[in-house]
Every structure is written in C-alpha cells, then in structure tokens.
C-alpha cells in the first residue's frame, strides 16, 4: 500500500520509491531495497504497476513504475480498509491514558 501511495503523484524508479517512502514517513520506515524490489515485481505481476524505461531529471536512464487503473482501485480499497481499521483502533484506545489521570 505504501508503494502504491508513493506513486500517486507520478512515476518513480525503484530507488526513488525507496527514498520517497523513507522521507514521507520521516525516516520511520527504512525499507531495504532488497525487500522492496521483489515487492515491486510482485505488484507488477498483479497488474497494479506498470513499468517503462525513461530518462530521469538527472538525465539517467532508469525503469520507472507508475500506477495502473487497477492499482489505483486497489489503493482506494486498501486505503478505505486501513482508515476503518485505524479509526477503530483510535476509538478503542481513546485519549492517551496519561492525560486521563
């Protein structure tokens, strides 16, 4: 889901995706490229990502991944599921216990 989310703003190459996730999460998620890369391939195989060779802003050739319509739909579905879940967790947890005392 994180991978799909980073690609909403436009196509990125593999390393770009890793960097984007890291910076968007304020370095909280440091995903190793070794794990990210097979995940990209898996998403591509499922048809949620498409890839193409393009030239980057720094004039280097790289393979860029972008969301397919199916990927966008999947992201929406997962996002809804996640916000339901997160909302439920928040309701159960309530305000921070320290403040209540």
């Amino acid at each position: 889901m994180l991978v799909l989310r980073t690609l909403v703003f436009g196509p990125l190459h593999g390393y770009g995706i890793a960097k984007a996730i890291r910076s968007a999460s304020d370095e909280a998620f440091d995903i190793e490229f070794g794990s990210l890369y097979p995940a990209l391939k898996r998403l591509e195989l499922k048809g949620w990502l498409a890839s193409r060779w393009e030239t980057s802003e720094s004039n280097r050739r790289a393979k860029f991944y972008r969301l397919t319509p199916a990927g966008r739909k999947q992201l929406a579905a997962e996002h809804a599921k996640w916000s339901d879940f997160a909302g439920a967790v928040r309701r159960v947890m309530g305000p921070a216990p320290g403040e209540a005392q």
Partner: protein
Amino acid sequence: MTWKYLIPRFRRREEADMQEELEALAEIAGRRELGNLALAAENARAVWGWTWIESLAADIRYAMRTLAANPAFTAMAALSLALGIGANTAIYSFTDAALVRSLPVWEPHRLAMLNWRCKDFPKVAHSFSGNNFKDDAGMTSGNFPFPAYEVLRSRSDVFDVLFAFNRAGRLIVQIRGQAEMGTGVYASGRFFSALGAPPAAGRLIDDDDDRPGAPPVVVFSFAYAERRFGVAARAVGQPVLLNNTPFTVIGVAAPGFYGLDNAEIDDIYLPLRLGPLMGESASRYQNSNSYWVQMMGRLRPGVSLAQAQSALAPMFQQFVLGTAANEQERKDLPALLVKDGGSGLETLRHRYSKALYVLTALAGLILLIACANLANLLLARAAARRKEIGMRLSLGAGRMRVVRQLLTESILLASLAGGLGVLFAAWGIHALTRLLANDSDTFTMHAELNWNVLGLALALSFATGLLFGLAPALQATRVDLAAVLKDANAGGPAPRRRWFFGFSMRRMLVVAQMAISVLLLVAAGLFARTLNNLNSVELGFNREHLLLFGINARNAGYKDAALAQFYQGLQTRLNAIPGVRSGTSSNFRLVSQSMSKTSIELDHPLASKEPNTAYMIVGPGFLTTMQIPLLAGREIDARDIATGAKVALVNQKFAKTFFDGENPVGRHFKLGKDEYALDLEIVGLARDTRYSSLKEAIPEIAYFSYTADLSRLYALTYELRAVGDPLALTSAVRRALQDADPRIPLSNLTTQSQTIDATIGQERTFAALCACFAALAVLIACVGLYGMIAYNVARRTGEIGMRMALGAGRGGLVWMIVREALALTAAGLAIGLPIALATSHVVKSFLFEMKPNDPLTLAAAGAILLAVAAAAGYAPAWRASRIDPWAALRHE
C-alpha cells in the same frame, strides 16, 4: 506466473531487463545504498515463479548426463523395467478389449441388457436357442420368447427404446454369382436408431422393414460392403442372395460399427420379422415357450439400472407364470435381470475373463520383480554416490533438493523404460494375437494400443519411478557427512542397516525377487506339463495330412435326394484330385468342441434308464480316411451311401456299455425317440477315438451314413487325406467345388491338426506366455542377484585380498561367494514354494490331468532357480578369485 515463461526465450529477456534495471539503479544510488543486489534479484525471480522450471531443467539435464555416463546401469535398469511395463501393457490391452471397452455407439452407458437367471435350465423353455452361462448359483441367458419382448416393449417409462435381435449364423452371400460366407444378425426396426448408429450410405433398417411380408432388405457392415463391392457405397441398391433367397441392400452401417458382440463381427443385418424367409419357423414369433430372441434397451435419461430392474422384473414374472403349464414348470421360473449393456454381449468377457485375471496377476509379478531390480540397482548406486551426495549436502544443498534431483533421475529412467515398454507391448500384442487366433480368421479380440492402454503404461512408469526411486533417494541423503567426506575410499562401505535376521534391504529385495520367480516358474511348469499332457493324449486316429473344409449345399438350395446326390458327386470329384489319398465327409469335425447327442433304444434291457449316445453322420470310407482301426465287421462304403442303407458303426465304448463288450456286428438299435427314431443295423466295430475334445473321456459313439436319414442332412465337412502337405490341395479343392456348383462357398478350411490345436488354444497360450514370463522373471531376478553379488565383491576387494594374502584358496573364495548367492536363492525358495503351494489352486481349472501342487513341477522350479542363481553368483566369484592380493591391499 505466466505460462509464456515456460519458454526459455521469454525468461531470458525478462532476466536481462532486470539486470539492466538493477545496474542503472546502482549507478544512480550507489551500490552500498542498495545493499545485496544479487539477493534482491534472486527474490524477484522467485516472485516470477520460474525458479522451479529452471531447477527442473537443470535436474533433467544432470540426470540425463548421469544416466548417459553409466550406460550399463541405465540399460540394465531401463530394460528390465521396460520388459515389466511391456508385459503389463500388452496383457492390459487384451483386458481392455475383452472386459473394459464400451461399444462404439452413442452414449453406451445408457444401454441396458436384458437377461434372465434360473437355478437350473428352466423347464418352461420348451425350446431354446442361444447361449447360457452357468455358474455356482445357477445359469444366466439373454434369450427370451418373442411375446416377452412384446410385453416388455409396451412399458414406455423405462426405456426410450427396447429393441430385439438374434444371431442369424453363417450365411451364404451370393453377389453377382460370387458366393462367400458372411455372419448375419436379425435386428428389430429400432435396432440402429436406438444404438444411435448412422448409415455410411443408403439407409438402415426401420420399423417399416421389420414386419411380416415386408420387401426383403438387408444392411451390410462397412467392412463387408467394402470387401464385396470394393467401395462400400456401391452396395446400396444391389441385389444379393442370402442362402439362395433374394434380398436388396438398402444401406451400409458406419465404419467401426460391429454390432453388439465383440466376439463376433456382424457382416449382414436382416429385419427380425423376415426370419421365415430364411427358413426360421414362423411360429417362433407367437410361441411363449420358445426362447431365442435377445433384447437391449436404451434407458430414458435419469433412469437407473435398478429402477429398470424393479419396473420390469414383475412384468416378466407375471408373463412367465402365464406360460408355465404345470407344477414342475412353475417350480423354477426364470427371473429377469437387467444388466449394464454398454459393453454389449460380453461373450469375450465370459470366454476370457478368468484367463485374463490370471495373466494380469502373472504380468504384475513380472513388474514387481523389475521394480525390485530397479530399487536394488538404485540403492547400489546411491551407495556408490554417497561421496558426491555428501559433498553436495555439505556445500549447502537442501536435502529435499537432492532427493528431488535423485527422483528426477529415477522418473527419467522409468519414462525411458515406459517408452521402451510400449514398444515391447506393441510387439507383444501382435505376437499374442497370433498365438490366440491360432491361424483362425474368425478371431475377433482386437487388442490395440489405445489411449486407455497407453495411459496405463504412463501411470505404471511414473508410479514405479516415484515409488522405487523414493526409498533409495531418502536413504542416500541420510548420510553422516563427516564420515563420508573423510573416507578416502570413494563410495566406501555404507553403514549396514539391518532389517530382519541380519538381512539388509538389498538382500530382502533379492530374496523377494527369487520368491516371485519361483511362483512364475511353477506356473510355467504347470502349464507346460498340461500342454504336454494334452499333446500326448491318444487320439485314436491319425491327425496328420488331413485337410478339412465345410460345404453347405442345403443353404444354397439343394434338398433331400438332390442334396445327397450333390454331396456324393462332390466327393467323387474331390477324391480324384491328384495328391488325395482318400476322402470322406462327416457332419462336423472330430475334436473340434462340437458334438451331437441323442437317446437310443435297444431291443434288450439295460441298466441305464435313459441310454444315450454321441453320434456322427459320415460319408463313405470314414474309418479308412481317418485311419481309425476297424476291429470287426466292415465299414460304411460308397454303396451304402448310394443306396441309403440304414447302417451304423459303433466304437468299443458303445459295445461295452450297450452290449456288455460282445461283438455288436449284426445287432440293431434305434437312434432318437418316437417318430424321429431311426432304426440302424450295426455293421462294424471301430476303435475308440477322442470325440469332441481332448479333455473329455471317450463317449459311446455311433457313426451312420448321411443318406440313412435325409432329414438330418445339412452341411458337411469334407476330410481329405493328402499324400503331402494338405494345404497344398487348397486351389485344386476350390476348382473342384467351382466345377460342381460355383454358388457354394467353401468355409473354414483348415487341417485336422489346426482344428485340434484350436481346441487347446488357451492352454497353448498359457504355456507359451508363462514360459516367456518365467524366463523373463528368472533373467531379471538373476541380473539383480548378479548385481548385488558383484557389488559386494567390489566392496570387499580389500577383505578378499587380505584373505588371499593369508592363504585362502581360490576354490574356497569362489565357494564363499557362490554360497551367498545360493543362500539368498534358498531363502527365496523357502518363501516362494509355500506361496506357490497355497495359491496354485487358482489355476486348477486350466490344468489337465495333473494336480496344482504337482511335486515334479515344484522340484523342477526349485532346481532351475538354484542352477541359474549359482551361475549368476559364479561370474563375480570367479572375478574375485582373480583379484591380485597386493594391488587390493595397497589400495587399502
């Protein structure tokens, strides 16, 4: 994964693309930033899911290399397994033809066959024509009275169609003056439509053809039409004479349609109600006590056999009850039995099923031996490859990975064997068909390599490869790595795993092979001795140089005196053929499973209440031509035939039973009863001969001339005693017949020897097959034994060298090794012989004049196996005795 990745080109393209991408990224980000790229790539490949294809391909390549590197091992293993698979496939193809295959018609599973069952022959059946099959509980038959068919047909909620049919026998089929025989069957109007059989040309019989007085039409089978007309479609509209009665061919059935009986291919289909035209009695369609017509139904969709049974059985019961005239007839009435009709009349099933079960079991044993052999060879090789496997395991190969690789090898080996086995099977089917058919052109069991049979071969190869590769593979990978790698002696001694009484798994396998070989040897011995007993049965006549053929002039239109005259004239022509020493005729052939029996009346009182005798209607000079010694009086000669003298010859048994062994010449007896009785004067006493079969005791036989009662004269078999090869007379015989009357075909031309051999065809087949099977089994088992002993000798080279260095004699060493072979064989005998004793009664019905536990056979089987085992053990022993002790010890 996508299927296109099964093709290497797509995989390579994807792979190159990925490498390029990773390199590009490394340039952007720096290698350290990205971590282990090789691992990332490997994991990505796993995502694509083709690693297993790659490793499978590698396994197969490696397995092929290993197999090719050991040609002797590969050949031995593949060949023995191929023989096993081939034998099973060949036998199964016959089982398939006789027991499994469905009729080649539309939706055969919806066909139901109607039979009846009774405890004994039903008294309510005043006349019966057809087949019945007896078993322990009673008898079964498919022949019904015609009115029963009409009653059952009135019920419409069970069958879409209920149709009827009946054998019409062998017919003379004349087309444009050319006469040949053909097999006919009567079919009711719905016969073809119910079976869903389309015409290949013209139209088929329908209800309008099947009524009394309808214009006489026939349908030909495709093969028969093609044979007689060249092109099948040309038959349509042609006039033909069937037994001299004119018919018109209206159509040809589809190619491949052979009727309902897989034992007899029907050539000609006649409308059922036209029987009277062919000389059948017209009253058979009304008589409720005359059992002859057969029935089959196409079940309505969704109706089961059980439902059909419960719906129809009461109807039939009510019908038969109405036809029983008295208490005796009512006592044991036939009951309806609805059976699956998908495979037709199942004549082949009744004839061959038991024999096929026995052969399947024997072939299965061969496969078992071959499998044991394979397992043994693989075990030996696994032991030899311990070092290689240990090395691979210690380098980090997963155990399952190594097991998989070994299994790939054994399955590849088994597939190779399967392919070879199919070749063996093709040859075996051909040979077996020739053996079973025994030169007879009416043999109809068409075994073939169809998908069903090939599927079995495939399944057998995979199962054997998997089953017998698994144990050795598991054992091979269960190794102590340190020990294996430390051991400088490649393939050094495996830790001996003891099973029972100190027997290792490999020894157990050899013992099992020997035990199975004993079983097959005993079977072969029993059948060979049976055949030998049958061949040495004293016939009482000379079977050599006799040509036999059938002539049916009555079906060609001759009657009574003209018929007798034709037969006499033909005899004169035949006897005049150069190379014919003498000739005669009779109403059937001696020792051909045919017989005629009737009651007789004598002018003096007898012990037996219902005296009866076998008889034979003969032409002039029967005893002379058959070379049956005449013991008293004279024989029936041409003058007797010409004058219609009511004279008879009897055999010794007849004289003994009915005249207390006194000379019967000059006495009279009545053959048959009441108005059919024929008063005969005995003019000669003949020596006893076999009558209908080699296996049956000689009955009382009366021979009387064919002119003594012209109403009994139908077809004749002519017997010609040739000076040389009887079959060399064939063309001269055909010419003589052509001169006498070209409209009459010659049927079933054989020699007397062939006729007799045909009656023991099953015994001959069994003897030949079992001899082959036993030889195969012994061969394979000995290869196994040899392999194991040779392996042990190789393993014990050092020990043997030591023994020799310490002064052991060569003879002692040879004996030490041969003794091991003999001990294993003896263990096999100790297991196999009791099993043979316990199971041989299964084949009792196939034996003749011997007991299933024939001691001579058992002893011979044991002796043969011990001798062959000693030979198999001697070769490696001899090699061991040549070992150079110094070389052997230095190696240590």
